């Protein structure tokens, strides 16, 4: 029997990317994505359930689908994207409910993978040049993203202690850059500016977005346990990031920095959340020896991630956004997933020819949704629950109706 995976935040960038990557794996029998909105990219066989993070729904979901793996990608790392309260609800309460559902006495969950961030280490002058996974942070978190992530991690840690039978892994990623990812840094760079604090040129790390997906995939498949730092090799000074990305540095004063940035932020010329200010002052380095020894090597370096962003940014500036605007149509999705009218090659693996990497943005983008769909994989076709769910409500995927 294949893996049955529950994915959080399917409507977010990471949820969609990870789902697209896991879909390619024949060992994955069933992939169920949760999200508060519709999926933003076209997915082949991922079941989708529109749900918030409330406990009652989660525990029902876990029980009904019998998932053995939970991939938790839905942690908000950008405090400028939502209010403090919403961020707390999403990160802390959401994770708490998820873990409670996964830890129920009759739970089928055997593995949990949490996509966390190196923000849990903070940025402080007393920091070591390299954080190992067990190095404590130098100062208690003072901004809400870091505070919420630290709380999340403590819940995950407690869960791992209480449930030794579940393989729990927490991946702390450095700042992500790449072709498509939208972060405060990428937004600034896309506007052609790199905020920096006058007199400071700290070293920061980056990891390429496809490497993030590959790493999550690697951990899901290998069943690795524990906490791991993930970053591309090398560290870059902020000035060099600006230089590679072709951005002009916006020098903010070293004192009253946030106040000086506020007018720019309000005019939407700059993204400058609190957590970015600390990073641009003191930088951060995480030691990635552990994940490398476990067998995962990032495909590109920190500078390579910035370079990849710069190339895609230049392309976007020249020819506009190449990504088609995918719109989730519930009826169409339900039809292609579950209608007996759709021909599904049993035992065929034809679906992987045009798959490309998870980050391949060219997959069938100029055809209408559903026309150039990849053939179903055997695992999906043999899923006894799938086809029978054709009459499901569009906002609740197949398995839940049983």
């Amino acid at each position: 029997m294949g893996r049955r995976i529950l994915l959080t935040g399917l409507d977010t960038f990471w949820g969609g990317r990870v789902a697209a990557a896991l879909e390619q794996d024949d060992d994955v029998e069933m992939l169920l994505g949760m999200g508060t909105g519709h999926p933003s990219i076209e997915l082949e066989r991922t079941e989708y359930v529109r749900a918030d993070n409330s406990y009652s729904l989660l525990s029902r979901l876990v029980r009904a689908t019998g998932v053995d793996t939970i991939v938790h990608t839905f942690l908000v790392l950008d405090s400028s994207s939502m209010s403090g309260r919403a961020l707390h609800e999403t990160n802390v309460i959401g994770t708490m409910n998820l873990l409670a559902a996964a830890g129920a006495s009759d739970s089928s969950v055997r593995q949990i993978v949490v996509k966390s961030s190196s923000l849990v280490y903070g940025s402080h002058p007393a920091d070591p040049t390299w954080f190992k996974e067990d190095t404590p942070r130098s100062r208690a978190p003072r901004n809400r993203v870091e505070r919420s992530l630290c709380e999340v991690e403590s819940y995950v840690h407690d869960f791992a202690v209480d449930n030794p039978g579940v393989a729990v892994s927490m991946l702390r990623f450095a700042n992500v850059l790449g072709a498509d990812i939208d972060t405060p840094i990428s937004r600034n760079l896309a506007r052609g500016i790199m905020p920096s604090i006058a007199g400071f040129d700290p070293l920061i790390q980056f990891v390429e977005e496809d490497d993030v997906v590959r790493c999550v995939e690697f951990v899901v498949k290998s069943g690795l346990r524990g906490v791991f730092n993930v970053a591309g090799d090398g560290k870059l000074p902020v000035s060099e990031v600006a230089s590679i990305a072709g951005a002009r540095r916006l020098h903010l004063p070293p004192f009253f920095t946030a106040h000086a940035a506020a007018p720019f932020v309000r005019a939407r010329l700059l993204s400058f959340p609190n957590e970015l200010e600390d990073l641009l002052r003191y930088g951060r380095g995480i030691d990635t020896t552990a994940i490398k020894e476990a067998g995962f090597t990032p495909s590109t370096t920190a500078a390579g991630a910035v370079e990849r962003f710069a190339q895609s940014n230049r392309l976007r500036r020249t020819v506009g956004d190449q990504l088609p605007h995918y719109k989730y149509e519930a009826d169409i999705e339900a039809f292609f997933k579950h209608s007996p009218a759709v021909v599904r090659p049993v035992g065929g693996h034809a679906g992987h020819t045009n798959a490309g990497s998870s980050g391949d943005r060219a997959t069938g983008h100029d055809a209408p949704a559903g026309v150039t769909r990849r053939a179903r994989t055997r695992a999906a076709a043999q899923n006894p629950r799938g086809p029978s769910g054709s009459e499901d409500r569009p906002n609740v995927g197949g398995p839940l109706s049983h």
Partner: protein
Amino acid sequence: MASNSNRKARQPQAGNGSEIESEIDREVDAPIGSLLRFPGGDPSDRLQQTDPARRGDVDEWGRSEHMRRLIRQLTTPMYQRWFRVEWEGLEKIPRHGGALLIANHGGAIPSDAPMIMHGIEQELGRPVYGLADNWFRTVPLVGTMWSRGGGVPAHPDNAHRILHEHGDLALVFPEGAKGPGKLVTERYRLRRFGRGGFVETAMRAGVPVIPIASVGAEESMPILYKSSAGARLLRLPYLPLTANHLVFGPVLGTVMYLPSKFRFRVLDPVHFDVEPGLARYPRGRVMDEAEAIRQNLQENLFDMLAKRRSIWFG
């Protein structure tokens, strides 16, 4: 004198370039260590060889070889002409493997640190990482320059990485800011050696501690008066009025040293007979070792001062 003999003594070895080069070649595979060994080759080239997307030459510690070169150009005349540095017992510093160098600290803006680092770099041809208080990092511009020039924040993890994993030399001043922040009347009287953390670091890394007694730095910028209210206001460790301010004026006096004669005496390496890599070492043992090193350093300082005939001419 002593430095000359040392320089002569190491000439044959320095001339034996193949040995050094082969060592560098061997190190190229190591991702961090290779970049930090600066004799031979332009590190910025090497950085770009391993990572074509890189544009600058700043390595993972924040060290820039261009900045190092600039600093070397500035320090060389100070080292040779201004302070006329002389070494004693330089052969006690190993040519290979990690060692934790410690020294007494003096002068309002301590000049001993760059001179010791520059001296060992020049005389032995191996880099020294100066571990300094992370207060530096909070100062705009100064913190960046210090990091580009090879300074590393004094954190036990950083020291361990340099000493144990890279097998390099690290230099610390166990007195901390209390060393340079003392008045001219208290010069060459060692302050408390922190809580002996440097001994524990050396024990854990399995490297010896090599004390260096330094004479001259105290008189290169002696503190006549300290303003504690001003220091609090400016958030400085101390706010001094130095003799240099009186001689060179308020601006130039802040950056200009008096030409005192520098002498460094390398003391016998202290090896600890303990198992390396432990999470904790007996506190009493650590304190005893630290105190013994401090006593020895103090005695040697008094000995050197007793033999010194002139502050300016040695």
